[in-house]
């Protein structure tokens, strides 16, 4: 067996999988997006750009997604980083495993059930009732963008914690000592050594969370009360309520393109930052 055929054999399962589960469905979506809605719903073949021309009708969904997905990613990062830092650098090694498991524990229950729990916590008898008890009246949390943001951060936090933790955990602690020996303050050591070294973890975590958030629909559906709409919710509606497969496909195709553009731009930014860091290191 030649090297080439061995490579092909190794790639065959993944290749077949991507062909059936990714390439073919995406092609179907693309073809449908140029079609028309059937009389009772569904799809009839056609070649028209009408569906794409109608995209502004879903502007609000795109806007919400493009605001809340980055906001959710950033909020997750701000909360996850100190936690990952503590777990990797500061935590007592004897407790590290236990603490890590505690981060994963919520994953043992379905996100659906955990999101339902938030309905109660954010509803009138939950946090607002506690706030009312200390004199802050009439706080409305459930079914607001803020509630969706809370749900997002809650749901996606572990996905952000782990890549950063893995990165910081492998950090050579002698570098920190060296920095300190050379007279850098702890803060300066963090900014010039720890943070740049953990950039790959941050980049991975942000990418994971951001990509999943762009396609999110469950959390806004449950904690947004059908009012805080992501593109994912618009898609569910187009396929499951108004049964407009053609328009739904156009929205889906646009979301994929949007995702490709943002992720490419993001990767380039990260690469440039990484290159700069190497330049600095060489100096």
């Amino acid at each position, binding site marked *: 067996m030649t090297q080439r055929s061995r490579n092909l054999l190794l790639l065959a399962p993944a290749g077949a999988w991507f062909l059936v589960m990714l390439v073919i469905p995406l092609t179907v979506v693309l073809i449908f997006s140029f079609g028309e*809605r059937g*009389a*009772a*719903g*569904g799809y009839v073949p056609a070649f028209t750009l009408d569906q794409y021309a109608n995209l502004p*009708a*879903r502007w*609000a*969904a795109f806007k919400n997604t493009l605001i809340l997905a980055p906001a959710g990613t950033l909020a997750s990062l701000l909360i996850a980083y100190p936690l990952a830092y503590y777990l990797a650098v500061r935590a007592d090694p004897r407790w590290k495993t236990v603490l890590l498991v505690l981060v994963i524990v919520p994953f043992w229950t379905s996100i659906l059930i955990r999101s339902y729990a938030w*309905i*109660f916590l954010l*509803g*009138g*008898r939950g946090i607002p009732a506690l706030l009312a008890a200390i004199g802050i009246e009439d706080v*409305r949390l*459930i*079914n607001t963008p803020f509630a969706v943001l809370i749900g997002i951060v809650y749901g996606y936090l572990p996905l952000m914690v782990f890549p950063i933790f893995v990165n910081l955990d492998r950090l050579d602690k002698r570098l920190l000592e060296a920095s300190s020996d050379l007279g850098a303050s702890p803060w300066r050591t963090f900014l010039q050594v720890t943070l740049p070294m953990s950039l790959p973890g941050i980049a991975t975590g942000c990418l994971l969370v951001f990509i999943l958030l762009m396609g999110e629909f469950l959390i806004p559906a449950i904690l947004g*009360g*059908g*009012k805080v*709409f992501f593109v994912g*919710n*618009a898609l569910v*509606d*187009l*396929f*499951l*309520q*108004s*049964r*407009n497969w053609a328009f739904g496909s156009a929205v889906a195709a646009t979301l994929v393109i949007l995702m490709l553009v943002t992720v490419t731009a993001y990767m380039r930014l990260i690469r440039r930052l990484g290159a700069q860091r190497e330049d600095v290191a060489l100096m």
Partner: protein
Amino acid sequence: MTKDNDHISKRKFMEELYRYKRGSVTRRHFLGVTGLGTASAVLAAAVPALRPRRAWAQGDIGDRVVLATWPNYHDPANFEAFTEATGAAVDVNVFGSNEEMLAKLQAGGSGWDVFVPTNYTITTYVGEGLIDPLDAARMANYDASAFDPRFAGPGIVDNTLYAVSKNWGTTGYAINISKNDNVTPTSWKEFWDMTMDSFSGRTMVHDYQLTTIGNALKYFGYSFNSVDPAELADAEKLLLDAKPHLFAINSDYQPSMRSGDAWMTMCWTGDGKQMNRDMPEIVYVLGKEGGELWSDFYAIPKGAPHLDAAYALIDFLLTPEVNAKEALFHGYPVADSRVNALLPAEVLNDPILYPAAELLDALEFGAAATLTDPNRAELLARFKSA
């Protein structure tokens, strides 16, 4: 019974009884050796009421049946009894709109055995070839003559039975009047005006084009079923104006109403009854401008994976005693006179279930055109994504 005896002495009988009571012999042995098993079987054959004749209790129908239905629409105890009697567990999928059910069936592979469509959708299901005709012979408890044709009629298309009547009801709204100085409003105009004023952030509308658009049309006095573009444009403007004031767009509104997060919601008869039963301050209102009168059905989608179980479940739920329990639980009126004969007078006189004639007369049945009209479908989707 493998060991039936022709005769058994009194003493021997008592010995066997004590042995059985002590647990040293099985029930099967006891019935066999004493002849009681044969006796009860003979007795059962002679007295039809004791015979387990019901179709749903016969044969092996598999271990599950999948039912697609609406929120708060069944007594769970009945499902348990069905599973007990047949061995088939009932998987319940809950939906908030007919459109969602239609979309699932159009996409194929829904896996449903029984679903609950509303009157105005059945011709579309038949036209699209999505449901199978029902074989009345497989539903021993179905008696066509017992049903009020006004509500059961839409189940028959081109003289063929496609669906059997489940319940009928109205679509009005429920309001927690303790939040409104104990004043009960009477119109859809008040519903929308209060939503945008004193009830801001406290109102829910259905995630369902027929009722949410229909009841917005009623604000202007248009037909609940309008597909006129100018009238729909008015309704859309009202919906968009009201949207920032809504608590949620969701057809499962009981939890929010009961917790006090929501104060007013579009509401179906039975939900209104269930909430009013537990919290008298939540009252059910039919808008005087009109609104929807509907009837729901049991139907079997084409290609149902557990067909025997589907017929067994429908037949079970149509059993008057079972159906009466359902009605007492969910508070929706039944079109079956055999069931009504079993219901207590206070249910049959309940103004939530059986509204006054002048309120009922103003209501309209949903029209088939609304289900397939692309403008109504897109209007609701736009409203939600706005």
